[in-house]
């Protein structure tokens, strides 16, 4: 009989998590520089979590998950970050699983869910296209019905870790007839070993290859691999955006950056400079107040409420604060701001440039901050056309 983790006290739950990390997350995987390690790099931790039943915190127990309440899930995510666990390729756990659990057939669930837990299937997400980024509804990768299969042609881009995934869940256009562009989109699960699938990694500003282009050239996919109804993919895909949206607004990255800023400031004696103290205080208070604002939304999640569109304000604030902190760190670095390599401080070092460059990304991905502001203007402030 599995433990009912929701019945455990928060403190005990935290301790259990810490013990688990101690057991199955090797030291060299903790506090990794790399934002998006590949599956192989973190496989030992992935399998360790799976073996202990901790891999899928929000999945129902019947499917091999922990069935955590949102409140416990928030602690799970918090401890994950606090203990410096590496990001694992989590599209299977975080997106495909919930998608199938809500919309999948019995056969789909029985086939795919265990293979996610075992690590046999490593998933990536094919949403964006070269001409469908902010305007996702304009996607045009086509899936044309041919008997029991769809024939897929087109291209996806910004597909995180596609080069180490073997399955992709994607949005494809199955109809062009509808007036509303969101109609006519379908969610499709595609085996990336199918002939006609090509992957090209794209290097980012940090010199890493987190994301890829994925090409589809007459790729034949069984119609059984559709999730939910054909042409209803927009609704299906949106339905799994639950309380997890709050994590886009978590203060984690600015906190990491702030720790680095303080480390460099101590090394450079900047705390003796009132001008630096003044700028430092502003950033510190921004971080503190972000915590207060995050807590207001976290409480809604913990109490089982629904998040509104207004939660986007956290995403804007945290991503822009992350940028500002890393900019201040470069300013503090003096001529060492020229270094791509980490800045040495005695035997330690500060990855000032690494974080500065990384901070360019979150303001763009997951819906650019301009799109977030557009949404807030419409959905929250109810501004006209």
């Amino acid at each position, binding site marked *: 009989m599995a433990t009912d983790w929701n019945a455990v006290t928060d403190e005990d739950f935290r301790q259990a998590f810490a013990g688990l990390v101690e057991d199955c997350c090797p030291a060299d995987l903790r506090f990794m520089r790399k934002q998006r390690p590949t599956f192989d790099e973190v496989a030992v931790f992935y399998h360790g979590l799976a073996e202990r039943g901790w891999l899928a915190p929000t999945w129902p127990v019947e499917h091999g998950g922990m069935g955590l309440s949102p409140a416990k899930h928030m602690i799970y995510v918090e401890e994950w970050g606090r203990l410096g666990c590496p990001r694992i390729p989590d599209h299977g756990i975080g997106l495909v699983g919930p998608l199938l659990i809500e919309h999948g057939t019995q056969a789909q669930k029985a086939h795919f869910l265990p293979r996610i837990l075992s690590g046999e299937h490593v998933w990536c997400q094919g949403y964006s296209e070269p001409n469908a980024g902010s305007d996702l509804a304009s996607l045009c990768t086509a899936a044309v019905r041919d008997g029991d299969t769809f024939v897929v042609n087109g291209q996806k881009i910004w597909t995180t870790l596609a080069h180490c995934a073997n399955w992709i869940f994607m949005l494809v256009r199955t109809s062009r007839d509808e007036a509303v562009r969101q109609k006519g989109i379908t969610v499709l699960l595609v085996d990336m070993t199918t002939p006609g699938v090509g992957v090209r990694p794209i290097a980012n500003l940090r010199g890493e290859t987190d994301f890829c282009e994925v090409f589809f050239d007459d790729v034949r996919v069984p119609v059984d691999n559709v999730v939910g109804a054909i042409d209803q993919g927009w609704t299906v895909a949106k339905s799994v955006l639950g309380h997890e949206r709050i994590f886009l607004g978590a203060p984690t990255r600015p906190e990491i950056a702030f720790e680095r800023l303080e480390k460099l400031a101590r090394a450079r004696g900047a705390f003796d400079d009132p001008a630096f*103290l*003044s700028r*430092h*205080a*502003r950033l*510190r*208070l921004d971080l*503190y*107040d*972000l*915590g*207060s*604002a995050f*807590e*207001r939304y976290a409480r809604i999640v913990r109490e089982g409420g629904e998040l509104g569109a*207004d939660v986007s*304000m956290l995403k*804007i*604030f945290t991503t822009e604060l992350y940028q500002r902190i890393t900019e201040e760190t470069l300013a503090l670095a003096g001529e060492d701001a020229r270094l791509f390599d980490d800045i040495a401080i005695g035997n330690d070092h500060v990855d000032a440039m690494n974080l500065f460059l990384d901070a360019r990304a979150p303001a763009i991905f997951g819906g650019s901050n*301009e799109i977030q*502001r*557009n949404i*807030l*203007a419409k959905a*929250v*402030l109810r*501004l*006209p*056309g």
Partner: protein
Amino acid sequence: MPELRFDDPDGTLAMLRDSVAALAGRHPGAASLRARRGEARDTDRALWTAMAEAGWTGLLLPETIGGSGLGVREQAILSEALGRALLCEPVAGSAVFLSCVLAGAPAGDERDRLAAGFVDGSRIIAPAWRGGKVTARETADGFLLSGAHGHVDQAASATDFAVLADTGNGPAMFSVPADSDGVTVDLQRSVDGAMIGTVRLDNCAVAASGMIVTPDGCEAVLDRAIAATRLALAAELAGIASQAVQDTIDYTKTRIQFGKPIASFQAIQHRLVDMWSDAEFAVAAVSNAVEEAEAGEGRRTALAVLAAKARAGDAAVSICRRAVHLHGAMGFTDECDIGLYLKRAISLNAMLGQPEELRLAFVKLERAA
């Protein structure tokens, strides 16, 4: 729109909000401000009395000495609502401060006399405790006070002053009737329309019983009073911030240029979103400080209050600045209320520490640990 949200099991908070709205209906804040300003008065006596009668001035005062005995949560809701309604009497700066002083004062006839008059609105007791220096020299039957304090609200209308003075053995608070010999008041115009005073004392004799807070414990009383005042100011500023966002949304939705409401232009929309977000952050900071204060005094609460006043002050002033701008030429007129919100925000933001000072105090306190 941004608004403080707390559990409200018995409906006290909703009732407080409703009663502010009702008073504002009878006694609109902007009209009161303009009238007071036009006549160069330091207070709207009718409004102040109504507030006292509603129990708002003594909200934090213990019931044992006639107050409402409510807590920081209720005070925050009240102050937020006052800010929204632009009801500009000095509830935070005078009533909250004084309530804390009287609550912290040892039992005594003079304390009870002041509390009674304060609570029923029959006396106006103006705290005079900063922006200057007053010394108290002990005499055979009391004290002689000399010196001056500035930034005194209701200074001309005051029946009594609560004066902070240095006794040589530390600071103490004294009750000084406004008509005492040796007391004079100089007035200047404040930006939010009331006259504010500098109170000068020239060998002003105070009876021994007039020392309502003795040096023993005065600093602790002051600390608590300052924190409570700052929190109330922060809540009032958050209310101003939220209302200014709302007014600007309303205005830009109805102002037509180039054939459509200016609120439909993307550059304006993004500006409004940022203003709204700033107001939400202000409310969140106040909310956090209220919760910390309810959990007890101490360092965490001190930090949260500093953060709340800094955040709400910055938010209110910068939101109102942008709001005035988005009201276009209309925003630059005195007829439009948005300018009054800006002025009120500047005034409250300037009280008891501007944001930069508070942020530095926060970091210093945090790093001292």
